[in-house]
C-alpha cells in the first residue's frame, strides 16, 4: 500500500536569515541512499516523503539475526522536509539530537518523521555521529546466561550509563564463551571476536567475526591460521596479535599470528618459544605481554613471554612481573594494573623500573556488589569492572608524582570506586569480556 501526501512547506524561518544557514540546509544528510540533489527555493511545494507500509519483514538493516519489524515505515529521502527543530539549522540540531541518550530514542521516534528516521536504526545514528564528529565511549560486554549458556552482547553507554543491545553474534548461540578472544579497535568502533569453543563438540574453531558500530552488523572474516581458544591477544599499532592457547585437541600451542584489520589477512609471526595457554595478556609499551598465571597448587612460578613487533621476537617476562600478575589486567595511561584475585581484590600497578607491583591506595573493589568472574576495561582515567549479573564498578584512578629519584619519576596511584545501576534482567548473566569502543 502506498500513501502519498502533498504537503506544503512554509518558508524556512531563519533566525539569522542568511546565506550560512541556507548553505547548510542544502547539505542536509537525509539518508545513505540520497536522491540527486535538487535546488530548492525558500518556499515551494514539494513531493513529501513517501510512506510505504509493507507487510513483508524488513530486510535486516541491523544484522543477520535481528528481529525484523512486522511493518516497516520506509522513508523516501526528499529535500524540503521540515527542519529537525524549527529555528535551528539542521547541522546544529543534529549535533544536539545525536547526543540524546539511547534510552530516550524509543519515545522520541514519535515526535515527527525526521526524528523517527534519525533514531530508528543504530547504523544511521552512529554513521551520523561520525559525520558530525561526535564521539563517546561505549562498553561492550560479552556475557552468557549461566543456566542456558546462551551468549549475548550488552552495551553500556559510558556517558549516560544506559544499556542497550546489538544484533546477535552469528554462528554460535550457545557456546563456552571464555574461549573467545575479544579484541577492540576502539577508535574505529570495531570489535573483533576470534576463536571459540563449541560447547557440544569441545573443539576450538578458527572463526573470526567483526562487528562495526557504524554499520551495526557482524561480518565473518578470514579464519585464523591455527584454530585456538583461551589465547592471548592484544592490539599494537592497529594490528591484532594472538598467541598460544589450546589447540583443537586441547594441547597448549606455541604459535602466534597477526591480523591486519585493513585487509583481513592473518600472518604467522615468530612462535612464543613455549607452549602456553593464556591466563591474561596486555598490550603495553608497544609490546604484547602474555602470562599463564599462577595455577593450583602454586608450586611453580608462572611463565610469561613478551613479544616485540619491531623485532618480531619473544623474550622472557621478568620474574617480578609474572609472579605478581595475579589477576585480570588493564592498561591505563601507559601503566599496567591488575585486580588481584589473591589479595582481597585490591588493585595493583606494575612499575617497570623496579620490576615490582605496588598496591593502589584506596578501598578494595566493592565485593558485595561485584562478584567473580570479572571482566575489566579502561577509558581515560577510569577502569570499569563488570561482575556477575553485569554489575559495574567504576574505579577513578588518580595519578600523583611522588618523588624524583636518580632521574626517574615515581608515580603513586589512588582509586575511588563508584557503582552503576544494572537492570535486574541481567542477574543471570556472567561476563566473559568487556571492551571499550568509541563512536
Amino acid at each position, binding site marked *: 500500500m502506498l500513501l502519498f501526501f502533498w504537503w506544503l512547506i512554509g518558508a524556512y524561518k531563519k*533566525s539569522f536569515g542568511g546565506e550560512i544557514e541556507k548553505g547548510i540546509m542544502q547539505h542536509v544528510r537525509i539518508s545513505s541512499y540520497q536522491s540527486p540533489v535538487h535546488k530548492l527555493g525558500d518556499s515551494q511545494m514539494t513531493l513529501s516523503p513517501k510512506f510505504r507500509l509493507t507487510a513483508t519483514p524488513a530486510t535486516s538493516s541491523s544484522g543477520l539475526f*535481528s*528481529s525484523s519489524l512486522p511493518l516497516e515505515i520506509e522513508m523516501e529521502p526528499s529535500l524540503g522536509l521540515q527542519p529537525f527543530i524549527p529555528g535551528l539549522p539542521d547541522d546544529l540540531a543534529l549535533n544536539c539530537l545525536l547526543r540524546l541518550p539511547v534510552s530516550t*530514542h524509543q519515545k522520541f521516534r514519535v515526535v*515527527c518523521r525526521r526524528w523517527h528516521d534519525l533514531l*530508528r536504526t543504530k547504523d544511521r545514528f552512529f554513521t551520523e555521529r561520525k559525520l558530525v564528529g561526535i564521539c563517546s565511549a561505549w562498553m561492550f560486554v560479552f556475557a552468557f546466561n549461566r543456566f542456558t549458556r546462551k551468549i549475548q552482547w550488552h552495551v553500556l553507554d559510558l556517558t549516560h550509563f544506559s544499556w542497550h543491545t546489538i544484533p546477535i553474534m552469528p554462528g554460535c548461540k550457545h557456546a563456552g564463551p571464555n574461549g573467545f578472544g575479544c579484541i577492540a579497535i576502539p577508535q574505529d568502533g570495531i570489535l573483533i571476536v576470534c576463536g571459540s569453543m563449541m560447547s557440544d563438540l569441545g573443539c576450538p574453531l578458527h572463526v573470526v567475526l567483526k562487528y562495526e558500530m557504524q554499520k551495526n552488523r557482524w561480518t565473518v572474516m578470514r579464519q585464523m591460521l591455527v584454530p585456538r581458544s583461551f589465547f592471548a591477544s592484544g592490539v599494537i599499532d592497529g594490528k591484532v596479535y594472538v598467541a598460544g592457547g589450546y589447540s583443537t585437541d586441547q594441547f597448549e600451542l606455541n604459535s602466534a599470528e597477526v591480523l591486519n584489520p585493513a585487509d583481513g589477512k592473518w600472518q604467522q609471526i615468530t612462535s612464543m618459544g613455549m607452549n602456553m595457554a593464556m591466563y591474561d595478556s596486555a598490550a603495553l609499551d608497544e609490546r604484547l605481554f602474555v602470562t599463564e598465571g599462577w595455577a593450583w597448587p602454586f608450586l611453580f612460578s608462572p611463565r610469561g613471554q613478551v613479544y616485540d613487533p619491531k623485532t618480531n621476537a619473544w623474550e622472557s617476562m621478568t620474574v617480578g612481573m609474572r609472579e605478581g600478575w595475579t589477576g585480570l589486567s588493564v592498561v591505563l595511561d601507559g601503566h599496567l594494573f591488575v585486580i588481584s584475585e589473591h589479595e582481597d581484590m585490591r588493585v595493583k600497578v606494575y612499575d617497570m623500573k623496579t620490576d615490582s607491583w605496588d598496591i593502589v591506595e584506596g578501598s578494595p573493589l566493592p565485593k558485595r556488589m561485584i562478584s567473580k568472574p570479572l571482566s575489566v576495561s579502561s577509558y581515560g582515567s577510569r577502569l570499569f569492572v563488570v561482575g556477575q549479573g553485569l554489575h559495574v564498578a567504576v574505579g577513578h584512578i588518580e595519578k600523583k608524582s611522588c618523588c624524583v629519584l636518580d632521574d626517574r619519576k615515581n608515580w603513586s596511584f589512588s582509586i575511588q570506586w563508584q557503582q552503576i545501576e544494572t537492570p535486574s534482567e*541481567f542477574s543471570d548473566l556472567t561476563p566473559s569480556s568487556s571492551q571499550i569502543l568509541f563512536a
Partner: protein
Amino acid sequence: MATIITKEQQEKEKMVTLVSSDSEKFVVEQKVAEKSHVIKMVMNCCGIESPIPVRRVKGDILKSILEYCEKHSKGEAQEVMEKWDKEYMDKAEKDLVFFHDLMLASHFLHIQELVDLIAVTFAGMLKMKSPEEIRQKFNINNDLTKEQEEHIMTTFGWAFQPI
C-alpha cells in the same frame, strides 16, 4: 609612519574591537577573538586595526560569548573549566530565548567548543521531556499519522531489543 614599535605597543595592538548588531563595542584581546573561527579568518585577511562588525549577533549575546572565549583562552585546569562551563550553562539555560540566540551565535561564529557544550546541555534539556512537550515547545509539526505513531510505539527500537 615608520616609527619604532615598542613591546608595549605591540601588546596593545593585539587588541581587537568587535561591534555587535546593535552597535555595542567590545574591545578584547586577539587571542580571545580567535576562539571564533569566523572572526579569526576575518582578522587574518583584514587585520585588526579597524573594528570588526558582527552583524548577526546582538550585544548581550556577544558579551556572553566573549566571556566564554576569554575564560577558555586562559588555559586553566580542566576541572576548573568544567565547573565554570557548568555554571555558565546553568545561567544560560534559564532563559530559552537567550539560550537559542546563544546557540545560533556560537554556531554562526564557529566556536566549536561552545557549540558542543550547548549541544550537550540542550540534549540534556530534551531528554526529560515527552514527545508532545517537545512538539509544543519547539513548534515541531507532527507529520506522522495516528496509525504510524501507534506502530512506532509498539515496535521495539534497537535500544530495547528484548534480552
